[in-house]
Each structure stands twice: as structure tokens, then as C-alpha cells.
């Protein structure tokens, strides 16, 4: 069994530890309630400290819990596209995380899905269940190992948030240059439940396409999805999300900040108001520094009256006026630019892990230099 041969994260090679740190994974697990590391299809580390929390490889969880199969392919349809079909056919693994009823106030659980073998096709199926009134924070990093530039990551994630449950889901991507990434995520939120997601990607990648769909099915449920996207030359990001407000009093917010330094970004967002008495706001902001393409596609669908849906979208370069304002305070153009870019990207994210912050600072610095 897996538990008998746990790999100690501290013993990983330094370069791999460095990469994990950049996606928010701490090999010293003091500040984590549990950890999960999957390399290709092998789960090499899976621990949990806290009673009331479960972290298991999906395959093992399926063996253990007969009922779990009823949770598969409910929020994401297996015949949605070629990628979901491929995962269904397998082989696959992934994480199963469950917070039992009323468990709350805990440190985050961290999970990492890493492509270790060049060219590997990693099939993943994750299930997250937040039971009634439980609170959970998952930090998940998806990445390629050192020296891996090619591969494919097909990741299904199905999330269930029961009455009064709350999930914070922070996902950071860091890929090799020729990696194709196709996450497929579906989220169900019941009455008074909350789903708060943050997604960050600013490195190389060939193509990422994802469009998680959240169903707010219980009254007063809340979903917030924020993403920070940076597309370097050669990267193609097609990223968005949909929140369907199916019950009265539900609230939805999608915020996306996209910056291209030469790559292509399609930034999508869709809010659906299916019943009366719902509220939603969508914000798509795009910054084109010099080259590249940003295509913002905000969509609002009201299916009845008494829905309040709004959006705000803007695509363009840094306002010269802002640069000059800072220059009048003594900042040179490069410093002024990086201050504005940093503000643009970090406006909505709180406490990035330090190594990720460092990496982001480097990206901003390189970018600002490149502009001069």
C-alpha cells in the first residue's frame, strides 16, 4: 500500500523542490494540514494530519468507498470531449479530498500534480467533497518537473460543496514550453455554500484551455473566481469560467486580469442568472504590453427578470498618463512601468507564497526591461 512507502518531500532533489515552491507547495509541511504529490501517475506522497480530513489517491478512495463512484462524472460529463473521454478510459489517478461535517479553521491542504517524464500524458481525476458547514483550503500546483518541456496534462476535477460548506481553491500552474493542458472542472455548491477560487499562471506553456463551471444550486450560495494570467511568447491561454445562479440569493463574481508579453490570451467569462433575485459581476481586464493578443469574451445570460448581472471589460496598453504621473514623482520609466504592471496583476490576489511572489517579481522586471 501507498502509505508504507511515503516519500519524504524534504528528500526531493533541490531543483524539484524549487519548482514545487513556486506553485505554493511547501516541502516543510508545518503550515499544511496535509500533502499530496503525484508524479506522472504515481502518488508518491499522501499525508494528512488532521482528524476529519481525508486525503487519498482517487484510485484508493474508490476501492475504499463504494459510494464514491456515484460522484464520478456528475459535475463533468465523461463524453464532453476527447480529453474527458481519454481520462475515463484511463489509466488515471488524482486526489480525493474530503472535509467531514463541521471541520473548519484549518491550515491548507497542498496537492501537486507533476509531469516527471518528458512527453508523458498525465490523466488526472480529482474529487473534492466539503461536507456541511466544513471549511477547506486547497493549494494545488500543477507543473512539469525539471528539464521536462513536453507533455500533456488532462485533469478532471469534481467539487461538491454541501450546505454551509466553504472551499478556497488556489491553483498555480508552471509548465514546460511544449505542454498542453486541459483541465475540466465542475463545481456544485449547495445552500449557503461558498466556492472561492484563485488561478495563477505566468510561465511558459504551449496551450491551456479550461472553462470550469460552477452551479450555485442552493439559496445564498456564493462563487468567486479570480484569475491572473500572463502569456509569454509562444503561449496560448484560453481561460475562463462560468457560474450558473440556480437559486435565489446566489451571488457570483468572476475577475480576470490578463497580460500578454507576446502570447495569446482568450479570457472568457459567463454568468447565468436562471432565477430571480440573483446578483453577478464579471470583470475582464487585459493588458497588452507590446506584442500579443487578448480577446476578452464576457457573457451575461439572464433567463428571467429581476436578475442583476453586469460586466466590465477593457483591453489595451498601460496608460501613458499613469507612467508620467509616477515619473513626476521621480521614478524612471522602467520603474514606473513595473509598478503599474505589478498593481495590475496583484490587485486582487492576497498573500502569494513567497517563492511565487519572487518569480512574479522577476517576470515583471524582465517584462518592464523588455519594454524600454
Amino acid at each position, binding site marked *: 500500500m501507498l502509505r508504507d512507502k511515503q516519500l519524504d518531500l524534504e528528500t526531493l532533489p533541490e531543483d524539484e523542490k524549487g519548482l514545487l515552491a513556486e506553485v505554493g507547495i511547501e516541502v516543510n509541511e508545518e503550515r499544511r494540514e496535509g500533502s499530496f504529490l503525484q508524479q506522472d501517475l504515481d502518488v508518491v506522497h499522501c499525508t494528512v494530519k488532521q482528524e476529519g480530513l481525508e486525503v487519498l489517491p482517487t484510485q484508493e478512495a474508490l476501492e475504499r468507498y463504494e459510494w464514491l463512484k456515484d460522484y464520478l462524472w456528475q459535475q463533468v460529463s465523461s463524453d464532453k470531449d476527447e480529453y474527458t473521454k481519454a481520462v475515463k478510459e484511463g489509466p488515471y489517478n488524482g486526489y480525493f479530498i474530503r472535509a467531514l461535517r463541521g471541520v473548519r479553521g484549518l491550515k491548507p491542504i497542498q496537492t501537486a500534480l507533476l509531469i516527471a517524464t518528458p512527453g508523458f500524458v498525465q490523466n488526472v481525476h480529482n474529487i473534492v467533497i466539503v461536507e456541511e458547514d466544513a471549511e477547506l483550503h486547497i493549494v494545488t500546483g500543477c507543473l512539469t518537473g525539471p528539464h521536462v518541456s513536453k507533455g500533456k496534462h488532462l485533469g478532471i476535477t469534481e467539487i461538491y460543496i454541501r450546505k454551509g460548506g466553504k472551499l478556497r481553491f488556489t491553483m498555480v500552474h508552471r509548465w514546460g514550453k511544449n505542454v498542453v493542458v486541459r483541465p475540466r472542472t465542475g463545481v456544485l455548491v449547495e445552500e449557503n455554500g461558498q466556492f472561492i477560487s484563485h488561478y495563477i499562471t505566468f510561465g511558459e506553456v504551449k496551450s491551456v484551455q479550461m472553462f470550469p463551471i460552477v452551479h450555485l444550486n442552493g439559496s445564498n450560495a456564493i462563487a468567486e473566481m479570480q484569475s491572473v494570467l500572463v502569456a509569454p511568447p509562444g503561449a496560448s491561454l484560453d481561460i475562463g469560467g462560468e457560474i450558473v445562479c440556480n437559486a435565489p440569493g446566489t451571488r457570483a463574481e468572476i475577475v480576470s486580469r490578463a497580460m500578454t508579453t507576446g502570447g495569446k490570451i482568450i479570457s472568457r467569462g459567463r454568468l447565468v442568472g436562471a432565477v430571480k433575485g440573483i446578483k453577478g459581476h464579471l470583470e475582464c481586464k487585459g493588458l497588452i504590453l507590446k506584442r500579443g493578443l487578448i480577446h476578452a469574451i464576457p457573457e451575461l445570460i439572464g433567463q428571467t427578470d429581476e436578475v442583476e448581472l453586469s460586466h466590465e471589460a477593457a483591453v489595451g496598453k498601460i496608460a501613458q498618463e499613469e507612467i508620467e504621473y*509616477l515619473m*513626476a514623482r521621480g521614478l*524612471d520609466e522602467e520603474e514606473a512601468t513595473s*509598478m503599474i504592471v505589478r498593481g495590475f496583476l496583484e490587485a486582487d490576489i492576497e498573500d502569494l507564497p513567497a517563492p511565487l511572489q519572487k518569480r512574479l517579481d522577476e517576470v515583471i522586471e524582465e517584462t518592464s526591461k523588455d519594454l524600454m
Partner: protein
Amino acid sequence: MLKIENLSVEINGKQILKDISLEVKKGEVLVLFGPNGSGKTSLLMTIMGFPRYKVVNGRILFKGQDITHLPVYERARLGIGISFQRPPTITGLKTRDLVKRCADDKEIDIETLAKELNFTNLLDRDVNDGLSGGEIKRSELLQLMVQQPDLVLLDEPESGVDLENIALIGEAIKGLLGRAPVKAISCRSLKEEKLRKKRSGIIITHTGHILKYVPADRGKILYKGKMCIGGNPFEILEQISKYGYQECIRCLGINNSI
């Protein structure tokens, strides 16, 4: 401190300042009057060096150095500071962080300074985000007080400020111009000397309310891009309120179209 010689300026090929000559001495405060659209703001923006304002003739000397073609940030570093009328919002940048950056390595107690300017609650707001007219003035003054320029350019510092805050702004400007002590700035030996020093300033005002607080040495009227009479700022203000800018046109005694 500042010397402007025969300065002509264009925006998008349209002339907005014509043959302006002006001197502001060390420690002197000049008040600039003029109707809307006469070029007052443009003059300040040109002195600061914004590229939209194209100098087609003449030159600007600051502390003896020709700065006519220096970029904005170099002028700022030489000691020119400006308060903007309508500064842009910078999303994601906290005012506190910008103020810290303006302070550079100067020893300044930003918290105390913010308190004096009644700005404490706004320090963690994004720069200029959702600020009222009066709050913007205070934000601009806060940045300038930290920057400590030797020549201060103030564009209508009292506009949009409520009566309650005008005294506060007036006092802040006095401090900024070295006419009153500023508590928050640590006064140690050399620095103290520097702070006592009177700074120079150019202030644009329509109402003249600010002159109740700020010592003004001289006034000038700018009319349709041309500089005309100078003199006692209080007298000029009185003339304008009595007779309007017509008086100024007469004094120019020439065709005013440019």
C-alpha cells in the same frame, strides 16, 4: 531657481504658450492667474516636462541647468514637484507604497504626516481610487511633502476642497514651501537647515482662497498663452474680481489671437 526664456509651446501642433519669460527666485512664491484655457496648467506641465507639451522655442533653466529637454523623472529628481489637478487612478498600487517610494531613503514618518493631512484612512486605498476632489488634493500634497521638492508647482490646490479642509491644506502648503515646520519630518542638523529653507513655488488659483494661508510674493496673469502684468498678487486678485480679465487684455495692448 527657475528661469524661463522666450518659451513657446505647442500641443498637437497648436500653439498654447507664446514667448513666455518668467523668473522665480529662490524662496519666492509666484501666483498665476488667468481665465480658463489661458495656458496656466500647460505652463506647469511644460516646466515638469510632460512630452505632450512640445517646446518649439525658448528654454527652461532650473538651478542654472538647462532642463528644456530633460525627461520628467530627471526634473523630479533635480527638485521639481507638481500636484496634479486630475491624477489617474492606479489600480493595485497602494497610496502608502507610492508615498514610501517618493520618500526614497529620506527619514519621514509617513503615518504622522498622513494624520496631519487627515489621510490615514485612505493610505491603503489604491492610488486615487474613488477619491473626492478634496481627498485628491490631500493625496497630492502628501506625496509632495514626502518628495520635498525645491520648486513646487500647485495647480488650483483649493478647488474642490470643503471649507473645513481648506485651512488644513493651506497649512500643509505652508509646510511644503518651508514657511512652517512639519512635525512628521525628522529635524536633525542638516535636514533641519534644509527644511527651514524657504522653497519656491508657482501656484495657480482662481478664487485666491489659498492666499489667506500661503505667503505669496508676486502675481502674474497669463492670458491666451501670453504672460502679462505682474505685481502684488492681492492687488491683482482684487483687480480681477472688480474688472475681470478685460483689464489684462488692455494692458497687453495687442491683438490677442495666437
